[in-house]
Every structure is written in C-alpha cells, then in structure tokens.
C-alpha cells in the first residue's frame, strides 16, 4: 500500500518536472497560432512554389527565413542609427503623416462605422436570446474600444499603407531614385524610411480613435433604427463600467502595429529587385507580411495587456 503510494508520488513528481517545461494547456492555442503565423510568413517570403521542392528546399527555406529576419534586424538597426542623428526631415514627416494618416481617415472611418453597425446587429440578436438586451451598449463599446477598433484599423492600414509604401519605395528602387538620393548625399533611410515608419507610429493611434468613434456612433445609429434610444443614454450605459485601462492600452498598442506596418513595408520596398514585376511582388508581400505580423503582435499584446492590467 505504502509502496504504491510512493510510486504514485514518484510518477506525479516526474510529471511535475515535465510540466514545468511543458506549457500549460491555456497557452497551447497561442503557441499554435504563433507557429502557424510564422510558418505562413516564412512560406510567403520565399514564394509558394518552392515549398514542394523536397528536403533541400525545406532546408534552404529555413535558412532564408532566418536570413529574412536577420536582414530585417539589420535594417531596423541602420534605421535607428539614421533616425536619431540630425538633420531631421520634418517637412517630409508632415507630408507622410498627411498621406498615411489623413488620407486613410475616410477608409478607417468607414471600416469602423461598418464594424459598429454589424456588431450592433449581431449582438442585439444574441443578447435578446439570453435576455440581456440592456447590456447592448456596454457590449458594443467594450468590443469596439478593446479589440475591433484597433485591429480593424491595423488591418485596413496594413492594406492601404503597406501596399502604398511597398510599391512606392519599390519603384523608386528599380528606377534608381534611391541611388540618386544617396548620390546627392542624402541618406534614404533617414529621408524615406524613418519618416514613413514614424508617421505610421504616430498616425495609427489617432486613426484608431477615429475608428472607435465611428464604430460606437454607428453602433448607436443601427441600434436606434431597431429600437430608438437617445445617444446620451446609449453612451451612459456603454461607458458606465469602462476604465481608462480598458481604453488606453488597446488604443496605444496600435502604435506597435504602426511600427510593424511601416518597417515591413519599407523593408520589402527597399529590397525590391527585378523591375516592374518586382515592384508588384514587393507590394503584395508587404501587405501579406504586415497583416500577418499585425495579427501576431495583437495576440501577444492582448496577452501582455491582460497580464499588466488584468
């Protein structure tokens, strides 16, 4: 009897050792998702055709995947070095803020508004079934400011700005405009890349605010069409339990999205080769990669925010 009990403790303690190194079940989904996104990203960088070329291809796939991340790291390093030293290109920064921020506003507002409408329609139906219809404003506000607003903004921008920057820098690269800039003693990292990345970082949180605003407002409009309620009452109900810690971290995590979009798009643009076809490839790959990394970063950031503020 006693021996048995000891055995069991032994087994349990062994398991305990394994469990220390084995991630908890609650983290598995996250790890799978991270692996999936990384795998897709690597596959996308290398082109889908090469996946089928056997083991040696798989080896070179892993190597060029690492190479890509290594090059991206070096790119970030030279960017930081270029961006920190004067002269600062303020004029170009303002121009980029305009073209990245202001010109994206209609699209972001529309996407945010549509999300608000859809959320209102869907959640009304669901909540009615559970008899919790009075929670509708709160659910809309929470879901928009905590997740829908930021991620919609991030994805819309990685499409619009990612493709824009990738194609612009790509075509500048293949027509020797980047060389021309270096030849006239202007650092293209400082003038082109740093300004674009910084504009993305600055503009994304602001655009997120716009998306949040439109989402909540259109949520109210859709709600009112189904069952009239005053805007004041809607907002009061919606924001009753909202804390600043529900609002600030999710809004400012989009600065990280902005960094990812800017850096990936500029990186893909600056390494373009192969003429006009290469420009198309750069535009596509910068959209695909920046949206993937935005989603990936979102998972990590949400977890991080919950750890810090939860």
């Amino acid at each position, binding site marked *: 009897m006693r021996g048995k009990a000891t055995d069991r403790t032994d087994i349990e303690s062994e398991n305990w050792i394994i469990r220390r190194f084995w991630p908890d079940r609650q983290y598995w989904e996250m790890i799978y998702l991270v692996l999936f996104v990384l795998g897709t990203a690597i596959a996308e960088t290398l082109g889908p055709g090469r996946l089928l070329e056997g083991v040696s291809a798989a080896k070179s796939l892993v190597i060029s995947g690492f190479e890509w991340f290594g090059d991206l790291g070096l790119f970030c390093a030279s960017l930081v070095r270029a961006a920190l030293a004067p*002269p600062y290109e303020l004029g170009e920064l303002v121009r980029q803020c305009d073209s990245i921020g202001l010109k994206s506003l209609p699209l972001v507002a529309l996407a945010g508004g549509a999300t608000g409408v859809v959320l209102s329609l869907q959640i009304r139906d669901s909540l009615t079934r559970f008899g919790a219809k009075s929670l509708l404003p709160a659910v809309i506000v929470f879901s928009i400011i905590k997740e829908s607003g930021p991620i919609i903004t991030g994805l819309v921008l990685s499409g619009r700005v990612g493709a824009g920057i990738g194609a612009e820098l790509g*075509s*500048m690269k293949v*027509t*020797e*405009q980047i*060389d*021309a*800039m*270096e*030849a*006239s*003693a*202007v*650092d293209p990292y400082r003038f082109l890349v740093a300004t674009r990345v910084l504009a993305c970082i600055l503009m994304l949180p602001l655009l997120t605010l716009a998306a949040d605003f439109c989402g909540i407002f259109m949520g109210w409009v859709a709600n009112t069409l189904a069952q009239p309620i005053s805007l004041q009452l809607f907002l009061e109900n919606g924001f009753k339990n909202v804390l600043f810690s529900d609002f600030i971290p999710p809004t400012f995590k989009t600065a990280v999205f902005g960094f990812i979009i800017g850096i990936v798009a500029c990186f893909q643009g600056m390494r373009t080769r192969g003429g006009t076809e290469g420009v198309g490839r750069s535009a596509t790959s910068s959209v695909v990669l920046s949206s993937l990394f935005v989603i990936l970063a979102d998972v990590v950031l949400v977890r991080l925010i919950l750890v810090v503020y939860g």
Partner: protein
Amino acid sequence: MVTKAEEKDETPIIINNLHKGFGNQKVLNGINLRVARGETTAVLGRSGGGKSVLLKLIIRLQTPDTGSIRIAGQEITDLDEEHLNEVRKKVGFVFQQAALYDSLTVEENVAFPLNRHTKMSQTERKQRVREHLANVGMDRDLGKMPSELSGGMQKRVGLARALVLEPEIVLFDEPTAGLDPITAAEIGDLIVELKQKRKITAMVVTHDVQGAKVFSDRMVFLHEGNVLVEGSFDDLQKSKDQFVAQFLGHGSR
C-alpha cells in the same frame, strides 16, 4: 601601401586594382584608371561589361570587393558615412534613366540637393535652380512632373540636378543612350560646354563612339573586367585587338 606622394595627389579619380563580383560572376577584374583634372574620359565597352558598376563604385553606391578608389585625394573604400557624404557632394551623378523623383516637380527635383546641403536663402536657391535649368534649356517646365517629360527632357533635368551643387567631378551613366541623334548630340554639346566653362572632370560611360569622339579627351575600353586599351580615339583605332576593332567598326559605320 599609400605613399606620401600619393596622399598629396589631388588627381580627381584614381582607381587601383579594383575587383568587384556578384556571386560567382566577376564583373571587374583589377581595374587601374586615372582621370586627370579637367579631363573627360569616355569608358567604352559592351553591355554588361561592368561600366555602370564602375561608376557606382566611384561614389560607393556599391562596395568593391578589393582595391582602392581615391576621389579628390580621399580614399573612399573604407570611409564612414559622414565623410563619404562630403565626397559625394563633390561628385555629380547623371543616371541612365535620369532617376528623377516621381513625386516632385522639375524645380523641386533640382532643388532637392540644394535644400539639404546649402544654407542659401530661399530666393538664392530659386535663382540657382533656374540658372541650372536654363543651362540645359528646361527653365520653362519648372512646374511639370517628371512623368510629363520626354526621355531627353528628363535626362536634361537629371543633368541639371547633378550639377546644381557645382561639383568638381561629374559621372555620366550612358547620357545619350535611347535618345534620337539630335537630342544625343545636344547632350554631347552640353558635356563639351561643361568642360570648357566649368573645367569639370568627367567620366562618361557610353556605347556611343561617335558622341564620345566629340566630347571626350581620352577613351578607355573595358572588356571582361579589364582595361583593354586606353588613349585617344586614334590610339583605339590603331589597336590590333579584335574586340576594339569590331566595336569601333560597328560604331562608326
């Protein structure tokens, strides 16, 4: 080793034993070249013979594998970014496809280097830009975008942009390629005019033997990454080398 005498040597362009390859392909195979002050050197050779690469190495748009490049008495192969930019300001580069900035107007394109490297007042800058555009006959198209210009006009604006900082050395990458004979001759005349008026040192990469005969003082024939022949047009014509004869034969027919 760099000797004292070499250190003081202010010859604009000195290239010693320069090697450059891409992957397994050797493009330049130990080039030696000197360009004297005020001299225009034409670099001839077949397409893909490393002529454009040579030009880009001179202002380190690409880095050489081994060898030395001295520009205006300054060794540039291991120069840091800041000093390199000082050297680049002394060198104008005219690109093959003009490489004008798509998003800027003609005037802004030419003003671009000026805005970043000089402390002139707004009006002085405007004045200088117009002057340089007038020299190439483009002062009536200030507000146009590069996409509205023809190839020859783009090249002229590119030339104005390369000259706006008044460099001592100008590098031309195929200035007459893809142009009609009349425009090509005009560009050739501009090069001659530059040499006479400003005493600039120029290096011109070209296929155009007839043009080169007009605007260059000296010709260098590159083949398979080496200097095959150098000298005047007559020296090249006297060359027994089959490639040179073939090249000149086809060029002057």
